[in-house]
């Protein structure tokens, strides 16, 4: 019988010492940013019913979720996302609260992905949700928070990218094709697959919309994108989306992150979920987006509470891994090791506490002889030994 008791499952890993310290440092920093702005932390269960993640706008492909069955035979999943459980919780337990509600969280999500590709199935995320306001001010607050978060990372550079799903939706509304075709077009724009997108649009016949859709994946960059987009396609919905995005772009650019904010109108991921602005954040040295979010005004109504919402999540693991290349997170050895000679073990603990209350880090020695303590302290890089007997003597190493 092959036993699996000495390894962790594929896509998961143990985090030791500096890895753990890096993750906690990022989480603490982000929580600090959010809590200072009035966000309250929540924790949702690690297990949820499958149904929470199986609706039109909150669809997760079933092969990407870890599933199990509860004692009553009901299908459950290991949380693949935090926003949907928070929407469920808000729509049920917080519906009578004064809006807007500002929530933040730090918890892992689990997604089953093809193995051996250098990706994890367990992802620690820290994020915020601002629920109950559809205003431009709410939008700006979330974008400002995203920028503050990205600029707090110890990396060489970052980029916040804004898109608006409304521009794409306006276009495909005027495209004469099936829902499947729209989904295919969306998928190809999302991955900027220019050749396949052209082939597919060729098969649908020539029109203003199809010509505009061909250019959509290339509509990314700075402020020049707005002019190009307006020239490319215009109707009431598309213009409204562009106006909203342009206003936000100008406002967040004025926050002082020049050249760090860009536009990509080809950000069309999860079309049924997002209803307005979509954001992604990137940092130097990490091959995938580390921040992702947007406006999702219909999600809560699916849980029976009609409230607009916006937010984002940060992939803490990716950020921590990238920061570790630049910052030393190695936990320092304690300042002092306290050794209680025979009969003075309790006094040693009391002395250790006293040191700690003075702001000194101290561990108590568990060895029987001072020679063992000296050897251990040298190996661990502990600089001072306090020996407790009827008096206290210090040895500096």
């Amino acid at each position, binding site marked *: 019988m092959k036993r699996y008791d000495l390894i962790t499952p594929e896509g998961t890993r143990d985090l030791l010492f500096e890895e753990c310290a890096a993750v906690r440092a990022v989480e603490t920093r982000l929580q600090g940013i959010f809590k200072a702005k009035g966000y309250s932390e929540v924790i949702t269960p690690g297990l949820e019913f499958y149904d929470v993640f199986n609706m039109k706008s909150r669809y997760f492909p079933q092969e990407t979720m870890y599933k199990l069955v509860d004692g009553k035979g009901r299908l459950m999943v290991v949380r693949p996302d935090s926003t949907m459980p928070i929407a469920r919780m808000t729509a049920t337990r917080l519906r009578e609260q004064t809006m807007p509600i500002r929530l933040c969280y730090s918890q892992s999500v689990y997604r089953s992905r*093809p193995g051996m*590709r*250098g990706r994890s199935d367990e992802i620690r995320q820290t994020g915020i949700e601002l629920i109950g306001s559809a205003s431009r001010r709410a939008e700006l607050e979330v974008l400002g928070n995203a920028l503050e978060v990205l600029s707090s990372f110890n990396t*060489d*550079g*970052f*980029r916040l*990218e804004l898109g608006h799903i409304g521009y794409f939706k306006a276009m495909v509304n005027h495209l004469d094709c099936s829902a499947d075709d729209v989904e295919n077009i969306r998928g190809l724009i999302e*991955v*900027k*697959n*220019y*050749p*396949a997108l052209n082939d597919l649009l060729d098969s649908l016949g020539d029109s203003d919309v199809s010509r505009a859709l061909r250019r959509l*994946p290339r509509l*990314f*960059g700075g402020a020049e994108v707005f002019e190009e987009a307006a020239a490319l396609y215009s109707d009431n919905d598309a213009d409204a989306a562009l106006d909203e995005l342009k206003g936000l772009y100008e406002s967040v650019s004025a926050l002082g992150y020049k*050249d*760090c904010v*860009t536009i*990509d109108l080809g950000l069309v991921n999860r079309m049924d979920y997002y209803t307005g602005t979509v954001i992604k954040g*990137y940092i*130097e040295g*990490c*091959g*995938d*987006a580390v921040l992702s979010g947007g406006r999702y005004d219909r999600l809560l109504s699916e849980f029976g509470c009609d409230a607009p919402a916006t937010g984002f999540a940060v992939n803490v693991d990716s950020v921590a891994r990238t920061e570790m290349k630049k910052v030393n997170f190695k936990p320092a050895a304690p300042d002092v090791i306290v050794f209680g000679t025979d009969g003075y073990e309790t006094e040693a603990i009391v002395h250790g506490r006293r040191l700690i209350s003075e702001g000194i880090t101290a561990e108590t020695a568990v060895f029987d002889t001072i020679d063992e303590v000296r050897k251990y302290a040298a190996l661990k890089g502990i600089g001072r030994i306090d020996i407790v007997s009827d008096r206290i003597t210090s040895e500096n190493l």
Partner: protein
Amino acid sequence: MNNNAARPLRIALTKGRLEKDTVALLERLGYDCGAVHEKGRKLILPVGDSIEVVLAKAADVITYVENGVCDLGVVGKDTIIEMGGKFFELSDLGFGKCRFALAGKKGESFYDGTHVRTIATKYPNVARSFFEKKNMDVDIVKIEGSVELAPLLGLSHAIVDIVETGTTLKENGLEVYEYICPISARLIANMVSLKLRKEEIEELISQIENTLKSKVE
């Protein structure tokens, strides 16, 4: 933020024919590929001042680009369909052309009868999705080497494989039953690199596309 100085644009090339064709293309664009021609056993090679070429197996090209250690990659559509992954597919380079096909012993009618067919292939995902679209259950056997052997030895009813000229099939008494899709070399990009190094990458792509266009004309 200026990261242009950080490191040259890193392109992963699929070793072998796609590598030669890509190098020829880069030379037409005026890049000095001397280091690639005299590579010896080196795997990371400078091309001019602004580009660095990495030589890898097809599937590894995708892995390197997906994880962002290479900014761009040149890889066959066959590998892209088989492996999938998260990256941008920016352009069809027009070389390395061939097709995926369903093939088997000459003269046999593959679709007759009600038995479950066995398919031998190096591309199990391509084969599976092809038959899924036809709502057919098939048994798929993964073969690493010459897939043509499988129907000849009686292991499978047919194969799903890349067909370029069809000569190998013909010489072994096999024929194409059905073409599945065309294949050619693609330029792929890491999703973050394209955003953070937009100017450099777009410049290279427009150079490539102009060259490809002028070649067609």
